[in-house]
């Protein structure tokens, strides 16, 4: 009986996880491998894929649009991710202070995060309208003549970056949960030891929430590598490719130009890029992330 017990557990384990296992094989593992295969082919979905070796990659490395899409995505990532993390942490710290109406502030700040990406894009496209938009009207009250935002290649990206400010509530909520998990006793002890606000933040609060910070950093980077909605709804990648985000570029190659092999090559490079960046962040995190009870 005892011998069959472990077999029985094995059987039920795999029976229960079967749905995920099928999903993993069909919708994750197979696409990853197939994507790699398609990246070596010329495929327009109508005729069957034709093996062309490394031609797609050779072409990619001479494709200006490919480089442009990388630059656009990196620019957005390098500005919006640090800014977003910084603001959501600051907001969380403000709300975590002993002030009235905290519940209201929390809800109000989080509210914009409930608006879908598409609705948000429509709304901000309207706010940033060069002629009738309210943003330029408000600027004009201060004597500033606003730019044409999404119709001007120099400002389209900045319009999108200003928009990310509106979504910091989601990150704020998670930081807030982290901050509330910082034991008050530790902060009191730091105070008794004569630590000021600044010192106790860097010596107590930040180390305690650093795992949250790491999680948010990785998720934010991965997310900003995959921006699609704004480009699809608002700018179509323009003007003059100034918002041609990487994933939007993949989408156009695959589903507008029907160059699925070429797009698969790009998609695969995205996977590799995300993997590398995640590993780099995880490795470098040893320096700033503190785990209670050490790490395994």
């Amino acid at each position, binding site marked *: 009986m005892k011998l069959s017990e472990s077999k029985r557990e094995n059987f039920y384990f795999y029976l229960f996880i079967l749905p995920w296992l099928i999903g993993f094989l069909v919708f994750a593992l197979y696409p990853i491998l197939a994507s790699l295969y398609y990246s070596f082919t010329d495929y327009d979905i109508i005729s069957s894929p034709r093996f062309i070796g490394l031609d797609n990659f050779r072409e990619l490395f001479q494709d200006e649009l490919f480089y442009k899409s990388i630059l656009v995505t990196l620019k957005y990532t390098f500005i919006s991710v640090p800014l977003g993390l910084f603001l959501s942490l600051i907001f969380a710290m403000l709300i975590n202070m002993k002030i009235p109406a905290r519940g209201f502030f929390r809800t109000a700040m989080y509210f914009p995060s409930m608006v879908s990406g598409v609705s948000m894009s429509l709304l901000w496209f309207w706010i940033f309208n060069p002629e009738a938009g309210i943003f330029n009207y408000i600027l004009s009250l201060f004597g500033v003549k606003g730019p044409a935002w999404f119709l001007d290649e120099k400002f389209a990206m900045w319009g999108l970056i200003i928009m990310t400010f509106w979504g910091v509530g989601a990150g704020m909520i998670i930081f807030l949960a982290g901050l509330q998990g910082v034991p008050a006793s530790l902060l009191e002890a730091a105070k008794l030891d004569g630590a000021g606000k600044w010192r106790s933040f860097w010596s107590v609060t930040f180390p305690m929430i650093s795992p949250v910070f790491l999680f948010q950093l990785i998720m934010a980077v991965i997310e900003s590598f995959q921006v699609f909605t704004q480009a699809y709804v608002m700018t179509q990648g323009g003007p003059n490719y100034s918002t041609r985000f990487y994933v939007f570029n*993949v989408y156009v190659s695959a589903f507008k130009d029907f160059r699925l092999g070429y797009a698969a090559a790009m998609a695969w490079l995205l996977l590799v890029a995300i993997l590398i960046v995640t590993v780099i962040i995880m490795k470098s995190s040893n320096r700033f992330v503190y785990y209670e009870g050490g790490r395994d």
Partner: protein
Amino acid sequence: MSDTVIDKTPNIIIDPTKVKGDRKRRMTVGEIVAFVLLILLTCTMLFPVIFMISTALKTSKEMLQFPPTIIPETFAWDNFKTLFTNDEIKFGILYKNSIIVAGLSVVGTVFSSALVAYGFSRYRAKGKKIMFMLMISTMMLPYPAVMIPQFILFSNLGWMNTFLPLIVPTFLGSAYQIFLLRQFFMSLPNELYDSGKIDGCSEFRLFWKIALPLSGPALATVAIFTFIWTWNDLLGPVLYLSSQEKFTLPVGLAAMMSSKFRIAPYNLLMCASIMTTLPVVAIFASAQKHFTEGIVLTGIK
């Protein structure tokens, strides 16, 4: 990496404003500054929302007026009616489609993720650690990296312009939700199952009759996450849905922006955005407590 993100102890959040005896304390200068700052920030955050509502209630003429008005001169409540009755927009159909897709995705994800999470939490098995690592690693798998082969697969199956590519995969679990539910099931004591075992319950019955009924808040969290995610998703529906009769709300809204109208009907678009956002807000309002618990439960801390 799996070992670093996971924290098995759920946190209890204590809201300091709820602690008695705190009320009459005078605010420090820093707290007053924070309070004023927060008021300003909140106004900035809510201003676009107010502008959204204001635009939704303007006539097409007033909408283009410059400088823009904040409170509409005439309230055009008819915009909402137009939205549902206009044959070009077909908002009712969009709404119905979104409810079908999001509804079935919620059912599929909750059921399958709970099943898998139960398996991961209850049994010791060979290869479990590897399976778990694989499951965790798919949490970060970017959809664009797998969308092309999936698209080819579904188009070979003849599933184009149907909801199947959006719904069927949800019945095979979602890594993030599995992880969340596993964390929850791990916190249930083993003794709970003993009485069921003595009664000769099958393994599935233990799951169905004991684990699930005790997991209301966690299941609600999964349902909410899934609903909002599918309700707002654009890329998936854009790939698979090609006729307007099949569009979900995000695709339909994006389509309204282009082609058919010479000037985008922002007042109608804002009505549509409000109608799209309302269910999400309603769900949040009714389940906010579960939701916050759920976020903490995932062990993000």
